[in-house]
C-alpha cells in the first residue's frame, strides 16, 4: 500500500463536486462518482453519468427521500448502464417510476459490485490499486465542519449509525497541530505526530468543507467508515487491456 494516494491528482478520474441541494440523493451521487472514476481508470475515458436516471429509475421509490448505494448499482445493472449527465441532467427532484433511460445511449456500465471487508488497510490497498470506493458514514460532525482532519471519538460520532454516503478518493498523513488540546486543558504540550487520514468527496457543493471534500482520521473506523465500503466492478475486455493508471 503506498503511503499516500489521491485520485484527484490524476486527470479525468474524479468528476467535479456536485450539490445534492434539497434532494437526499447522496447515495446516487456517490454511486455515480464511483462509476465515473472506474471508467476514468480502466478506459481512460472521462465520463459524467446521470444521477437523475438513478433517481427516476430507482426501484425503491422516491430517490430524493434517501436510498442505498447497492440499489443504485442494481439500477445500473438493470438498465445495462447509465446515460450521460448531459443527456439526462440532474433536476434535484425525483419522478418515481418515470424512468427515461431507454431514450438515451448508455455511456458507462458495470459488471458487478462488491462490498469490501471492514478493514481499513485492505480498503486503502483496494483504493490505491483499483480506484475510489463509496462509503457510508455518520455525518453528525459534518454540520459544523470547516476544514482539517476530523479525528472523531465513538461517542461524538457513533460508527453504528451511518446515514450519509460519500466517495473515498484518497488517503495520506499530516502533522498534528501541536498543543491545541494542551492550551485548552492546561496540560503539558504533546509531541507532534503524524495523523493518517482519508480524503472523501462530499455532495454539498464545492463551497463546503475543503472545496467540497473533507478528511477523516484513518485507522479508527471514524464515523463508521468501514461499515459499508461498496464499489462497482468494471471489467476491461481482454483486447482492450492497457496500462492501468495508478493512484498518484
Amino acid at each position, binding site marked *: 500500500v503506498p503511503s499516500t494516494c489521491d485520485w484527484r491528482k490524476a486527470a479525468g478520474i474524479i468528476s467535479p463536486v456536485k450539490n*445534492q441541494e*434539497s434532494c*437526499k440523493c*447522496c*447515495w446516487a451521487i456517490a454511486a455515480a462518482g464511483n462509476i465515473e472514476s472506474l471508467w476514468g481508470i480502466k478506459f481512460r475515458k472521462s465520463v459524467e453519468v446521470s444521477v437523475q436516471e438513478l433517481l427516476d429509475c430507482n426501484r425503491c421509490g422516491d430517490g430524493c427521500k*434517501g436510498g*442505498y448505494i*447497492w440499489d443504485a448499482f*442494481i439500477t445500473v*445493472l438493470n438498465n*445495462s*448502464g447509465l446515460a450521460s449527465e448531459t443527456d439526462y441532467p440532474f433536476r434535484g427532484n425525483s419522478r418515481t417510476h418515470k424512468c427515461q433511460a431507454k431514450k438515451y445511449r*448508455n455511456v458507462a*456500465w*458495470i*459488471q*458487478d*459490485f*462488491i*462490498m469490501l471487508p471492514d478493514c481499513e488497510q485492505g480498503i486503502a490497498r483496494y483504493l490505491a490499486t483499483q480506484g475510489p470506493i463509496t462509503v457510508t458514514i455518520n*455525518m*453528525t*460532525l459534518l*454540520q*459544523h*465542519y*470547516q*476544514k*482539517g*482532519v*476530523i*479525528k*472523531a*471519538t465513538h461517542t*461524538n460520532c457513533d460508527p*453504528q*449509525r*451511518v*446515514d*450519509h*454516503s460519500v466517495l473515498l478518493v484518497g488517503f495520506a498523513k*499530516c502533522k*498534528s*497541530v501541536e498543543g491545541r*488540546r494542551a492550551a*485548552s486543558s492546561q496540560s503539558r504540550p504533546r509531541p507532534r505526530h503524524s*495523523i493518517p487520514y482519508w480524503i472523501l468527496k462530499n455532495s*454539498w457543493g464545492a*463551497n*463546503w468543507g475543503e472545496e467540497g471534500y473533507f*478528511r477523516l*482520521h484513518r485507522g479508527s473506523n471514524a464515523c463508521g467508515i468501514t*461499515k*459499508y465500503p461498496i464499489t462497482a*466492478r468494471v*471489467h*476491461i*475486455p*481482454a483486447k*482492450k487491456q492497457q496500462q492501468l493508471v495508478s493512484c498518484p
Partner: protein
Amino acid sequence: DSRRGQDPSPQPLKLKEVFTLFQIQYNRSYSNPAEYARRLDIFARNLAQAQRLQEEDLGTAEFGVTPFSDLTEEEFGQLYGHQSVAGRALNVDRKVGSDEWGQT
C-alpha cells in the same frame, strides 16, 4: 466555558453581527421576527457546539460557521442524511451482473 479563559461564543451584539454575516454569505432570510429569533438562538447553540467539537477533536479539524449553522441537528439529519442503515442486512447476492464483457 468561560472558566477555560476562552470566550466560547461571541458577545450578544457581536453574535448578531456574526449571524448577519452568515445570512449574507449563505443568502438566508426568515419570514418573521419570531423565526429570526429562533434561528439566531439555534445559530448561537451551533457556534457553542462547534467550539466544543473543536476542543474535543483529536485531529486537526476546524469547526465553525457552515451553511448548516442555522439548522438544528435534527433538521440537518432530516435534510441531508438518508435513513439510517444501522442494522439493515444486505439482501443482495454478491455476484450479480452479466458476464458479457463490456456489453450494455
